[in-house]
């Protein structure tokens, strides 16, 4: 039986590649309390911007996907050794990016599902969202550009973030995400997280086969 949710809010942050945290902080300053702003990472800022205009409630669930997780914050934390920085330690722990935003808002949520995979991350994040009984699920994702870990091939080469609000209400929806089980269906390549962000930004459809079924994201 097909499992589906409707997409009601989409916002994607795709800053130009040279943007660093300081520039994002200046660009997005009006979206965050000043006290929180100075401590936020680039990923936290982008996630907060993607969530701009979404009023969460304690009954909502959040699914947060990132292949590299808080790798950029981790680079900074390591640079603080041997006098390890408590602030940088906190922000280096997954899911620090989304916690920066929700703690800044003092916004409790019932369930938060932070994923950190790679090859089938999008499929797994969407499945996690579809299995959520909460009436409203916020699907978040993002990466931030690494520095020395990027030179070694272990960090993202770009920064981006997205937020999509998923509900069971078809009325007024911008799109639909669904999974239809197909016994024995072979796995195809699953779109990467950046490809999902691009599809959400451009409202282009996505479809693939994996985890024993067909996946699709379509737009109204």
């Amino acid at each position, binding site marked *: 039986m097909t499992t589906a949710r409707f997409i009601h809010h989409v916002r994607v942050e795709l800053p130009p590649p040279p943007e660093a945290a300081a520039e994002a902080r200046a660009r997005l300053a009006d979206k965050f309390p000043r006290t929180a702003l100075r401590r936020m990472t680039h990923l936290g800022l982008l996630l907060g911007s993607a969530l701009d205009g979404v009023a969460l409630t304690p009954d909502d669930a959040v699914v947060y996907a990132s*292949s590299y997780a808080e790798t950029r914050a981790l680079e900074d934390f390591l640079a603080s*050794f041997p006098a390890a920085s408590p602030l940088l330690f*906190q922000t280096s722990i*997954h899911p620090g990016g989304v916690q920066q935003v929700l703690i800044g808002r003092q916004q*409790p949520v019932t369930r938060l599902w932070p994923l950190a995979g790679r090859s089938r991350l999008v499929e797994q994040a969407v499945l996690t969202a579809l299995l959520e009984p909460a009436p409203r699920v916020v699907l978040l994702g993002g990466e931030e550009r690494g520095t020395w*870990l990027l030179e070694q091939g272990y960090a993202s080469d770009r920064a981006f973030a997205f937020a999509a609000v998923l509900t069971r209400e078809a009325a007024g929806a911008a799109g639909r995400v669904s999974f239809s089980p197909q016994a024995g269906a072979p*796995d195809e390549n699953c779109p990467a997280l950046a490809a999902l962000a691009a599809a959400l930004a451009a409202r282009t459809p996505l479809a693939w086969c994996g*985890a*024993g079924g067909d996946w699709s994201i379509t737009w109204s």
Partner: protein
Amino acid sequence: MYAAPDQFPAGLEACECLTPFGDAAATAGALRSGRRALELTPVLGRDGGDPVPLALLGPMDETLPPRWLPAVHRLAAQIPAGSWGSAREPVVVTSSNFGVGSMYAFTRDRDARHLAHGTPFATVELLRRELRWGEHVTVFSHACVTAHLGLAHAARLLQAGVADRVLVFSFDFVSPFVAGGFHSLKILNGGMPAPYAKGETGSIGLGDGAAFAVLRRDAGPFRLAAHALHNEMFHFTGNQPEGAGFAACLASIAGAVGGRRIWIKGHGTGTLEAGRLEAEGYARQFPGAPLVSWKGSLGHTLGSCGLVELAVALAALRGGEIPGTVGGAAPSFSAEVALAPFAAAGFDGVLLTANAFGGAHAAMVLTYE
């Protein structure tokens, strides 16, 4: 109103762990004897630093291959046969550390080979290759409630019929990276943890730990019957002062406990404020239910603690006697804190909990016949 818990009785086909004491049965035995695995160890390993309580399977300095890999192999040898990592038998990996200690090793040694198992996905790719899992490996990381998330997600996969069996695999090994971080927060200091004790100062210990569970739809004698989660988002490292986050999670799971006679395996790291809020919360919601923590011996195995301590709880139930709160001392934050071992007979359920940074709370109910 509190969120309804997930209620789907997932049978535990197998569940095992590895701690400095050995497997789950050896660990439960050591805890019953009141032994501590924690020892005072320099916080940065061979780089020195203040002595802090760590429970390690070996020296924590990073090696090539990583020091955790042989331990993971030792544990994985006990996983029942299956098409693990296939669509119908997926794997859920839960960890808060992964191989992050390798990053610290790289910054110190400049040997790029350390990075091949530093990031979460690189660590899991190494695990996949070593343990011959397929591609369907979901990775969760949510600090110290991570293993609870993995188990809850596994139950959802079974309930939805998208999986036949699910392997949840968790591992967290201490490194200077992690020990240094907790030391910087001033909650890992020179004192041994005394969970739920009304002391002058609180302190945690950290421990190596790995565990797995195989969950299946058809119920066995031991079942994970319900899961509840709550994220208060009040502060990065603190909880709401009146304990509202603990109360929300416990109120959510209370309906699933029903009339069962339970004992509680709490989180109990040894910090004062969280320990007080936790113990008082249990006493309010489940008055009279004995409360234990084992982190005064095993240390805090971080993202893996929920699964490591589940395996120990199962072994304790099989042995007929539940270990008390090793390292605890009177007076405690509530009368329910059990300092000494007690008989498993007379109970028909266990509430297992964990708490994490960001005010994340997790609880699950283990039932048995």
